[in-house]
């Protein structure tokens, strides 16, 4: 239960005690909030006293009579806004002149309560104000969290982009200073390594493009019948040169031509990432089995490898941004750490799911389930 502090500023004692009596026993609940709100009322007879309480106590809600003996209600409201206090203010007015109303509006009054008011009118107004306060607070909190996630993403990203540049720069300096000799052959390793790092950096940038694409683009118009066999074949063709070097065989198994309604690029993202992972994290002479299957409602995709496997603790963060499993076996494998995170985001859009089964040094199987009729995007 949350208690909101209410300050009532009014020179009529009857109004003040009335407000206190009504609100001290009042409780507000909303269907979308777990906790109820109750109220604790403090009173001030003048604007000057009100400001003192506002400075010291920082009430959540201020009920403000405009016509006060010293400074006017509207001036108190102005004071609150100039101080940038985060408070909801409702003006209580007996004769609401247009002038006062406009000024109050300009200074961000949340509500107007006409005087005299019934307990019901007061309650209804306070209920409304409370709801606005709550939503404002939640929005603020969400923006803050969003901001932190973005900052973290950017800082890791810049690290991932800077490391390869440092490496290439270092090798170029070695060459510039002729550190290993005068012949180009003396620099075979630095050249190979530089090309490798640039290649990985390029794939990171490609992944980033996928990443922004799935977040920004509206898809509805891109939905079409996608033959998953074609998508799988293309993914296999793309990875084949690498697979041959790794001596990894790739088999594609399917009962019939499975068709799904989707944006073909999304399906490419899924297949490209999972097929290339299955090859990259395999052992020499291993194999990859891709199975495309379907039942009444879902398309089922299996990507099974005979590779290094993923330990139980590593499986937990597998689908987060920039997570790369670092160990002796993965140290020479390049990757952005974005692939599975991107796959997961694509699947979320299609209301699909991905699960992983893995035994270290035996192999890993990713299982994807995609509902056939999921075109109403989130």
């Amino acid at each position, binding site marked *: 239960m949350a208690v909101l502090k209410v300050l009532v500023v009014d020179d009529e004692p009857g109004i003040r005690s009335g407000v206190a009596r009504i609100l001290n026993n009042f409780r507000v609940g909303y269907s979308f909030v777990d906790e109820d709100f109750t109220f604790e009322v403090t009173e001030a007879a003048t604007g000057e006293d009100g400001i003192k309480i506002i400075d010291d106590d920082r009430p959540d809600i201020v009920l403000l009579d405009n016509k006060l003996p010293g400074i006017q209600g509207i001036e108190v409201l102005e004071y609150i806004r100039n101080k940038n206090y985060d408070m909801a203010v409702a003006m209580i007015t007996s004769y609401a002149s247009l002038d006062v109303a406009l000024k109050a509006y300009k200074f961000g009054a949340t509500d107007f309560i006409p005087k005299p008011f019934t307990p019901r009118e007061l309650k209804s107004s306070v209920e409304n104000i409370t709801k606005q306060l709550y939503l404002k607070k939640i929005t603020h909190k969400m923006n803050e969290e969003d901001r932190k996630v973005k*900052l973290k993403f950017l*800082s*890791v990203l*810049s*690290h991932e982009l*800077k*490391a390869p540049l*440092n*490496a290439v*720069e*270092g*090798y170029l300096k*070695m060459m510039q200073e002729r*550190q290993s000799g005068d012949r180009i052959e003396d620099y075979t390793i630095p050249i190979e*390594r530089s090309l490798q*790092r640039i290649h990985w950096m390029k794939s990171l940038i490609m992944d980033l493009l996928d990443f922004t694409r799935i977040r920004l683009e509206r898809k509805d118009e891109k939905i079409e019948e996608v033959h998953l066999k074609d998508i799988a074949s293309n993914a296999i063709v793309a990875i084949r040169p690498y697979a041959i070097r790794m001596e990894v065989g790739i088999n594609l198994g399917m009962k019939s031509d499975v068709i799904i309604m989707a944006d073909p690029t999304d399906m490419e993202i899924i297949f490209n990432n999972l097929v290339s992972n299955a090859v990259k994290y395999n052992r020499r002479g291993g194999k990859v089995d891709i199975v495309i299957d379907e039942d009444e409602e879902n398309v089922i995709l299996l990507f099974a490898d005979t590779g290094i496997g993923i330990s139980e603790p590593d499986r937990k963060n597998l689908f987060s941004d920039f997570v790369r499993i*670092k*160990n*002796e076996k993965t*140290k*020479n494998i390049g990757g952005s750490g974005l692939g599975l995170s991107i796959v997961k985001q694509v699947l979320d859009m299609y209301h699909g799911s991905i699960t992983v089964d893995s035994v270290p040094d035996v192999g890993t199987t990713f299982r994807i389930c995609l509902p056939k009729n999921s075109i109403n995007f989130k």
Partner: protein
Amino acid sequence: MEKSDFTILVADDDPDYLFQTVNNLGRAGYKTVAVESQAEAESVIQKMKPSLAIIDLMMEYEDSGFILCYKIKKKYPDVPVILATGVAHETGISFSLDSESEKSWIKADRYLEKGIRPEQFDMEIMKLLKL
């Protein structure tokens, strides 16, 4: 003492950075021991006492560098440790080792940005080795 009397332990999981650092240190005249992980570094310090250690912050774990610093200082309090990383710059968490409380927490003698010039790096090392 000559530079060649000193053995520097370098720990970094970026094989290229490791190669280049070891290369630069070798050209400057030092002996080096290179390792690619916190685990390897830990087993090295069981067997030998380096004259100085240069450690990357993020290896197997985000705080591998801090843990290694702590372990080296515990075993060999007189071995200078340099934390070499690009992380402060990018995360905006900038910390230097100026205050005593930071020193006791991080346990490193120097914090150096990756990508500084080899000559500057060497000067920092010479200062720590009192050369």
